[in-house]
């Protein structure tokens, strides 16, 4: 079985290496020792797959593309946050024990799989791209030189290694509420530098609601980024400087009082509630709507009060775990991650939306 995986042509036999893999779930767990054959040219994710194929069929691990482009196989290898598929086994000594653990910053689901929904919550809170109102889709025109800064940040594969390694939330769980993390700072910078983004309060938002001030630019996000995005130099520091423009620069403040620019700034600031709690309470899933008017408009079409029915959780096996495959389970095919009682397309009456022209029912 293992010989199949040897790269063709080299003929070099694999060596057996020592691994420690964290096994467990939220009730606890520990590092388990394994000896696994490693062949030339392999990466850590190959080793995980070999483990699943041999000794540990129930080892849980997220993965997808094996090419460093999907951002699924984030894990900590010898304590460093890395992508399993981009960490070559040749970077370790043959006698070295390689320790593989799940991302520390997020709640554990099982083995190497963590619940990264913190990041999706922060993503939802970030106001979306807001083009000028008069522009219709298809009329967007911009010059390459104007968008190239934003394009760097579009390389992000959302592996969340930066979010995981950032000590602001990694070592201080209590900061999660007020800190969005490097991934959303590059999002804020991407939009603030975008030539067609008409929103003027992104700097204030980054400072007041994303917790930009928590960052002490120790650059670990940049160090672990598999896409080599210069997160700190090209996004966080420019955003900090933009906040300085607005909040800490008396020269700019004086200039804005004297010149016309003051009125625009004041208008922008009036739109921006400074208190994070206040922002949180008006937050809309539609994005781009931290303005009271947009909220009112959105409310006409969306039933914010309605609770979406929570789907039934997928069935678990006797040990309380998701079944790896139908071979180890009593049902044909793997359970639906959305819950087996959910069918697609979702029934229209359960959606959190009603057409603005229709009367709004109070439920």
């Amino acid at each position, binding site marked *: 079985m293992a010989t199949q995986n040897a790269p063709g042509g080299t003929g070099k036999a694999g060596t057996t290496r020592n691994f420690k893999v964290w096994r467990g779930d939220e009730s606890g767990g520990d590092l388990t020792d394994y000896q696994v054959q490693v062949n030339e040219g392999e990466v850590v994710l190959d080793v995980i797959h070999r483990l699943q194929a041999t000794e540990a069929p129930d080892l849980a691990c997220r993965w997808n593309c094996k090419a460093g482009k999907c951002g699924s196989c984030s894990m900590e290898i010898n*304590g460093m946050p890395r992508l399993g598929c981009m960490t070559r086994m040749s970077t370790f000594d043959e006698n070295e024990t390689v320790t593989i653990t799940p991302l520390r910053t997020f709640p554990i689901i099982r083995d190497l799989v963590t619940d990264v929904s913190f990041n999706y919550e922060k993503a939802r809170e970030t106001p979306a791209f807001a083009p000028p109102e008069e522009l219709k889709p298809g009329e967007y025109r911009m010059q390459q030189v104007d968008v190239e800064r934003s394009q760097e940040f579009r390389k992000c594969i959302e592996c969340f290694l930066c979010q995981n390694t950032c000590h602001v939330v990694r070592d201080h769980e209590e900061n999660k509420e007020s800190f969005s993390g490097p991934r959303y700072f590059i999002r804020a910078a991407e939009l603030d530098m975008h030539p067609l983004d008409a929103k003027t309060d992104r700097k204030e938002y980054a400072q007041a609601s994303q917790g930009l001030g928590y960052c002490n630019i*120790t650059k670990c996000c940049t160090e672990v980024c598999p896409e080599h995005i210069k997160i700190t130099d090209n996004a966080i520091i420019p955003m*900090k400087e933009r906040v*300085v423009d607005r909040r800490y620069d008396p020269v700019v403040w004086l200039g804005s009082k004297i010149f016309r620019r003051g009125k625009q700034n004041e208008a922008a600031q009036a739109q921006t509630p400074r208190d994070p709690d206040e922002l949180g309470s008006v937050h809309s899933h539609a994005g781009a709507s931290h303005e009271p008017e947009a909220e009112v408009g959105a409310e006409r079409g969306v039933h914010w009060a309605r609770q979406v029915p929570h789907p039934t959780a997928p069935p678990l*096996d006797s040990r309380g775990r998701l079944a790896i495959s139908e071979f180890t389970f009593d049902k044909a095919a793997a359970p639906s991650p959305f819950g087996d009682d959910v069918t697609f397309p979702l029934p229209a009456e359960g959606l959190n939306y009603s057409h603005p022209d229709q009367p709004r029912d109070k439920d």
Partner: protein
Amino acid sequence: MTTRTAPPPAGLPGSVRQRAAITAKTLRTDRWWFAPLITVIGLGAWVTYATVRVFMHDFYWVEDYHYLTPFYSPCVTETCVPEAAHFGRVLPGWWIIPDAALTLPFLLLFRLTCYYYRKAYYRSFWLSPPACAVPDGHKTYSGETRFPLVGQNLHRYAFYAAVIISLINTWDAVLAFHSPKGFGFGLGNIVLLVNVVMLWAYTLSCHSCRHIAGGRLKHFSKHPVRYRFWTFVSKLNVRHMQLAWITLGTLALTDFYVMALSADWFNDLRFIN
């Protein structure tokens, strides 16, 4: 078999979920402590040398060649050698007042609030964090949101001051083309010039400079000149860390060279006069 249900997703009420119970504080096996250690040694040694020199109040001026060390530029106290005080002697001469008391505080502020040095000392002196994925040495953390660290936002003003001080240092380097016979050129001039060029490179590679040069613009296409300036500063900015260390080196070296000439430890190598 399917009696247990999965816990509710995070974010719903009653769903405080635990992180993986990993006991080791860090599982890093490389020498992650090495970089903070050499930073502490390097910065500690430099600060010690600079402090000793600043309060020495001697060996800062070479009379024959008009070499003035950057640590005493501009020399503004009453104890200054009159020829070395290019901008007058306005402060009282008391040992606790550095002879360059009008500029050193701004230079200190410039380096203290520099985005590179912040990384360096937060990691090495404050251990927050000492290295990536190594736990922070503190129980609570509020970053740069509160006093005093919110003062790091003063970096831009320190940058403006540093530009003025770089101009003064450049002027010193120009005045140093001197000998008792008039014009002169020696190894000391090269040392001073290299120092000034490196100081300019460090000052212009500053992140605040990059922002002022063009980083704050939304449309580069509407400001081609500022875009070119921004591109130039961006290229330098990539080397900001190296320049930060190089300038510490050139400053100490320049000061040591001037001190050695002034104290007659060796003679300047003269090319012209």
